[in-house]
């Protein structure tokens, strides 16, 4: 390596000067907290259609609220030289949803009133039907990782304004766990199922502007806002453990490798249904029945805004 540098003395010398003598680097670490908003049109349709599907299959009627954003936390490690800074940002959002005592009763499907597990456990109710209650848990991880470059200019002693761009991958996954308890005389044993919903690794890009206040040399308080372009191209069910009679009743084709689709039968989108099955099964159905399939994707493109704290180690 050294010998090859000697063969190109100008380049070797320039690199030496850049890195050691004249190009002093600042290192920085940032933490930020904010909010990110997106449309997630397919995800919201899933929620709406799931509301219909579960009601049709004996669960309580409920209304969904829009899923259009989440708190954004991020950590950046990077280096700054002159007006340029380069960093690696990991944005993370981990959320656990837990729903306990979700009742279902297939015999009273499509009802417009609500029942509770307490109702179902009542001996007078028990004499009529078999039914159950579900304990459901979902862990959702949203993890975009981007390499970022930013150009900024100082505005006097206290302020700095910059604009940057990030490119990376949108990783993450969701784990769903369901424990079902079946009630009534002669009911099947309780069961448990767990699986992962894997979104794959998808491209993410960010454009952003920073307005930073520098009260001290080692600390900057930064307002960051920008636009993220990202999407999840599909959701795949994998690592299934256990089984569940009620889950299989609602999604009979769900198994490892199955993906989530919207299935259209008519020109009216209100008639669409959720289909969970493998791509091969979905294609066979489309061919045989004359229905249309659309792979559920996640459009996480949208704005974000955050308050950042930048910690600097100068002239390293």
């Amino acid at each position, binding site marked *: 390596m050294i010998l090859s540098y000697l063969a190109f003395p100008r380049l070797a010398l320039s690199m030496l000067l850049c890195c050691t003598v*004249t190009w002093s680097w600042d290192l920085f670490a940032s933490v930020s907290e904010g909010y990110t908003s997106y449309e997630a049109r397919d995800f919201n349709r899933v929620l709406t259609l799931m509301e219909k599907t579960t009601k049709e299959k004996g669960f309580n009627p409920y209304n969904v609220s829009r899923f259009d954003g989440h708190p954004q936390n991020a950590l950046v490690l990077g280096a700054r030289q002159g007006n340029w800074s380069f960093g690696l940002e990991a944005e993370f959002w981990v959320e656990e949803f837990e729903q306990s005592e979700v009742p279902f009763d297939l015999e009273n499907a499509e009802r417009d009133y609500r029942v509770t597990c307490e109702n179902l456990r009542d001996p007078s109710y028990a004499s009529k039907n078999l039914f159950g209650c579900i304990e459901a848990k979902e862990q959702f991880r949203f993890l975009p990782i981007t390499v970022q470059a930013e150009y900024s200019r100082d505005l006097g002693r206290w302020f700095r304004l910059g604009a940057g761009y990030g490119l990376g991958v949108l990783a993450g996954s969701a784990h769903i766990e369901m424990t079902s308890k079946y009630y009534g005389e002669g009911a099947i044993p309780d069961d448990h199922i767990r699986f992962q919903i894997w979104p794959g690794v998808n491209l993410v890009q960010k454009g952003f502007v920073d307005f930073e206040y520098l009260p001290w040399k080692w600390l900057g308080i930064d307002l960051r806002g920008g636009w993220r372009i990202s999407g999840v191209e599909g959701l795949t069910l994998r690592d299934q453990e256990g089984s569940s009679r009620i889950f299989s009743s609602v999604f009979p084709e769900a198994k490892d490798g199955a993906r989530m689709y919207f299935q259209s039968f008519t020109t009216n989108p209100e008639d669409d249904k959720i289909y969970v099955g493998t791509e091969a099964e979905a294609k066979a159905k489309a061919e045989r*029945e004359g229905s249309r*399939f659309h792979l559920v994707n996640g459009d996480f493109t949208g704005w974000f805004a955050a308050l950042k704290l930048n910690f600097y180690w100068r002239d390293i």
Partner: protein
Amino acid sequence: MSLIRLQWLRRNKMWKTLPRLQRSKKFLLPGLSALLILMAQACGKKDTDFGGTAPVIPKDSLVKPDTSKTLDTLRFATLNMSIGFPVSQLLFTNMADQPTAYKVLDSLFKRYQRTMPKERIKGMAKAIADLKLDVVGLQEVMSFTKDGNLVDDYLPELLQAIRDAGGPAYKFYSNPLNDTLLQGAMDGTVLKIAFHEGNALLVKPELAILDSARFLYFTLLKIPTGENAVTQRCLSYLKIKSPNGVVWQVYNTHLEVFEDISSSQALEVRRIVDSLKLRDSAGQETAPQIVMGDFNVLPNTDAHTVMQEGGFSDTFDTTAADPGFTCCIAASALWDTQAAFSNRRIDFIFSRHIVKVLEHHVALKDSLTTSTGVGLLATDHRAVWARIVGQ
């Protein structure tokens, strides 16, 4: 940039390289990302959307009568006879445990008996005879056996009861489905229950049956009680000829309760009916087509919309004389004449290539009184009938 470094770069004529590099970097990342996006989209798009909804066919149900041909008016009806017990309960029953299975089957049999099938059949037979129906599509036509002894066989009993009520000796086309054998044992006593249910078409003796077929749907509800267990559903077909010489194509079906499955099955109905269309040498349709049954969906939704987009008209739409509610008695408690009725319309008579619908009504609205003076509901649905002119 420091002064020393600039001087060094200038001296070595390398200063030009830096802006060039900076310029190229400015375009490198966006350029690379644009390329990646294009590649990702090119790779990912191909399997995200596939298939297509069947073409929307404009309704052509009313054809202009041809004066050179004979007109014919027939009375069509659809009736779900009700099997009398909730099968879905078996889904969550631990049938592997023999004493549990025994208790459940015993309770199921007692519940079944409580609906007094023989009395109900008489009530349905009287309605069919009184309405002078030409073609009747029946669903949930049950045959029930306990410990090897036939308890009820709806179809022959209904045919006999119609004759007893002064009606004609209907011809029939039977499509039994869902053959089921269940067994339980407790304290050395074994209880075996066997049943099947399905569709049937009744045709007045004056009408000739020219052709028949049964089409089991590809899309069937999978039941998670065993490997390859499904709920069988089918489309029954008859080509009939009236004494006036008019040929009719008649279909009868009972679609799945769950709308994702029933929509698929309705698409299959459209395909089958289209493939069997009778045409003359010029390619013009020649026979009126009637598709009736229990579709298990509300009007203008799901399977009903599938049929409408296939060019079928709901005979209710033009001539209904009542709200047309056909479904259903709460929990199929047929012995309870005060049981709530959910006021839904899920049983339909669709038509295509007909001349006119003259009437549309529901029947079996009221409870009947058995020979022992007990009030009873004939079925958990109501019958739908329509008078249709064809050519």
